[in-house]
């Protein structure tokens, strides 16, 4: 009954539980300029089938200055989710505008959409009106020979003039190399009204020089929403700027600096095989990322160690825009064991801080199997030493031994288990103990059961009496025969009757031998004991020797 109630309660609880609706929204662009059109998308996920929303537009009360219209719903039959689309125009003033919570009425339920905040800022670069214009993006600082300067031309449009492309980008600057990713490579701006044309500038000699950049952008004039009133035109741009270029300072320049200028970072080293065998080459892939002249870095030569033979195998060429450079080294383990790959360091010059910095690829633990070559040199350097650790530091892992004076040692290291006296003494003691235990147990047993010894003794006496009787029979000594036979009967019957043999009479013998002839027993007893009382001649009892022997045999069998 209780179980039935529990199951019922579970059903009721499950039917009463309602999952909350999950509501998300997205404003494109996330931050709008004043008067910039935007798009709002509200996404509702529910456990129930939602269907089409009714009268959404009437429920919304946009804040003052904002225009917002319900533009429709992405509708799918029998779907548990709904996407409501709105289009609007941001207010003309900067600030945060809160769209109050509103109800979305579906056939199955009413979903409350919480308040939504729209951020309006002048910093987005959005321009509602005005001519399209180009801006040069280039750092304002001293440049260094060999560095890669990431620059770009930002072509900003407006609602009236939209920038749709550019061509004819030319650079006139002595002492610089100018590179772009190609004429077609441009990045659209976030507001969708302009483009960004990136380029790379590399100074090749020191001094002051004038940098000149010119090009043409394609501009569409007219209402960009209406495709019937669009006309395009070319609009040229030209920039001139004086740039100062210096050499990388020699002060503090590391000896192993390979020409790297920029802000570099390392990624975790990638090893092709962490469990190689001795002599098996493995690939160590090192990837540098960040801003800088990655393609100009000279791969450092890493000397072999006692544990590794190292060679620069190749490098992966990435596109310049990817901002990464990968070096691949071939490492060949020379010794088995738990090794570490060498820590590889890249010094780089940071043009912002004007200081040399070092990035380091950490060591990777490798377990090398196999056998060491015949001649093994000892390890003298620690491959995982940190930056600045003297390379000549001896790390062998051995502790300095200390030998105490005057301590007597052992002449031969042999286990006690190999000692013959130990095992002989233990075995002897064990055998003696077991023998003593056995003896004491046997003696104790017979002491607890004396009938065994009594019967055994009686058996012996009976046999001796029989032998004496047979001897007397051969000698025709009738009296001796009767005495021996009587003694045999008494001896054999005594343990059965638990009595002393001499105390037994012929009637006692009959109790032990119920089937025996009473006359014969009386006769033999009379012959044995009656002589002194003047009994009859015992000669006739000898004639019954077979019966008497049978009695003795019966008694012996019972003992």
């Amino acid at each position, binding site marked *: 009954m209780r179980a039935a109630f529990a199951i019922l309660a579970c059903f009721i609880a499950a039917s009463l539980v309602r999952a909350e609706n999950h509501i998300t929204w997205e404003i494109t662009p996330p931050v709008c300029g004043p008067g910039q059109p935007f798009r709002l998308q509200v996404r509702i996920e529910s456990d129930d089938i939602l269907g089409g929303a009714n009268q959404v537009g009437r429920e919304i009360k946009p804040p003052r200055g904002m225009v917002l219209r319900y533009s429709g719903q992405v509708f799918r039959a029998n779907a548990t989710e709904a996407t409501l689309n709105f289009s609007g125009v941001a207010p003309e003033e900067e600030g945060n505008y809160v769209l109050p919570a509103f109800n979305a009425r579906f056939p199955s339920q009413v979903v409350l959409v919480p308040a939504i905040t729209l951020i309006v800022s002048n910093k987005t670069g959005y321009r509602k009106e005005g001519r399209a214009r180009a801006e040069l993006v280039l750092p304002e600082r001293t440049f260094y020979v060999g560095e890669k300067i990431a620059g770009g031309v930002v072509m900003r449009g407006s609602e009236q003039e939209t920038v749709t492309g550019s061509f004819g980008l030319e650079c006139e600057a002595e002492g610089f190399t100018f590179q772009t990713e190609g004429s077609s490579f441009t990045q659209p701006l976030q507001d969708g009204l302009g483009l960004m044309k990136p380029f790379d500038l590399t100074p090749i000699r020191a001094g002051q020089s004038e940098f000149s950049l010119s090009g043409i952008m394609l501009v569409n004039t007219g209402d960009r929403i209406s495709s019937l009133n669009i006309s395009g035109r070319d609009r040229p741009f030209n920039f001139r700027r004086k740039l100062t270029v210096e050499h990388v300072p020699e002060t503090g320049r590391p000896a192993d600096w390979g020409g790297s200028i920029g802000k570099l970072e390392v990624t975790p080293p990638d090893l092709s095989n962490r469990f190689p065998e001795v002599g098996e080459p493995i690939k160590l892939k090192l990837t540098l990322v960040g801003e800088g002249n990655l393609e100009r870095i000279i791969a450092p030569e890493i000397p072999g160690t006692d544990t590794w033979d190292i060679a620069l195998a190749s490098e992966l060429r990435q596109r310049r825009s990817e901002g990464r450079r990968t070096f691949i080294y071939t490492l060949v383990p020379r010794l088995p064991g738990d090794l570490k790959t060498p820590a590889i360091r890249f010094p780089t010059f940071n043009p912002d801080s004007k200081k040399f910095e070092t990035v380091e690829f950490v060591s990777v633990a490798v377990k090398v199997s196999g056998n060491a070559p015949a001649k*093994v040199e000892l390890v003298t350097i620690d491959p995982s030493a940190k930056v600045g650790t003297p390379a000549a530091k001896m790390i062998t892992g051995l502790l300095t031994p200390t030998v105490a*004076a005057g301590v007597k040692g052992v002449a031969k290291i042999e286990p006690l288990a190999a000692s013959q006296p130990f095992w002989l003494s233990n075995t002897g003691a064990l055998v003696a103990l077991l023998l003593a235990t056995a003896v004491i147990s046997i003696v104790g047993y017979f002491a607890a059961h004396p009938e065994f010894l009594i019967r055994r003794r009686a058996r012996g006496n009976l046999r001796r009496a029989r032998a004496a009787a047979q001897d007397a029979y051969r000698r025709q000594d009738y009296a001796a025969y009767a005495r021996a036979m009587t003694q045999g009967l008494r001896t054999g019957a005594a343990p059965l009757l638990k009595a002393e043999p001499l105390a037994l009479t012929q009637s006692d013998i009959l109790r032990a031998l119920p089937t025996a002839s009473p006359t014969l027993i009386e006769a033999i007893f009379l012959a044995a004991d009656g002589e002194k009382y003047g009994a009859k001649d015992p000669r006739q009892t000898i004639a019954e020797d077979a019966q008497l022997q049978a009695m003795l045999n019966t008694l012996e069998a019972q003992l």
Partner: protein
Amino acid sequence: MSRHLSLLALWVLGATAPLQAGVGEAAYERGDFVGALQTWRAQAEADGVTAELLSAIGNAEWKLGHKGRAMVCWERALLLSPRDPVALAGIKHALGAGGTDRPTQTWSENYAAFLGADLWLILGAIGFWGTLLAVLVPKLRRQTMGDWTQRILITSATLFALSIPGLYGAYTLASRAVVRRTDVPVKLTPTVLGEALNGTAEGDVLRTGRKLNGHTYVTSADGKGGWVKSTELEPIWGGTLPVNLDQPRAP
């Protein structure tokens, strides 16, 4: 007069003994490993070997590049003192950077290494005899077990039970040997021309099994089995200093 001479002799011995003890260490410190080795060997032959002395000799042998001899010394030092720090560091270094292999110890071997083989045997014997006597003596005396007898029985039985894995671990630990030659082939059969399955290097520690035809069945650290010539191995038990393989054997 003779008393004064005796005192003088004692003073001289007392003054020179620490100096002799420090000679090897001083030589080792300044990098004269041959000198240190000779000093310590002489000390070992005179006074017998201790764990400290064997560890020190192992370090000096390692420094001279004698991996097999060094491993034998360190392993034997651990037999005398299972937690000798110098020997443990030496073996760890040999396994890590030195390129030697050593079978991973089983749990019973780790357990056995806690006390040493002899101590386990003594404890086992005490536990065995205590248990046996606690059971038999009351029976022989035809008495019931008293309180103390029961305590002795439980203590002895516990000691004996605890010593069994230690004895087993000590037994398996004793069945090991160090490869003394470089590039020793591990053969499929215990014959001179047996097919070489793989190889072992000097200083590797192998588990040893039965012997046949001058060969010993070994199991390497990675579990591969095969036959190795017995003369190329040196058992860990049963010696003091590593044998000199270059010296020809007496006929």
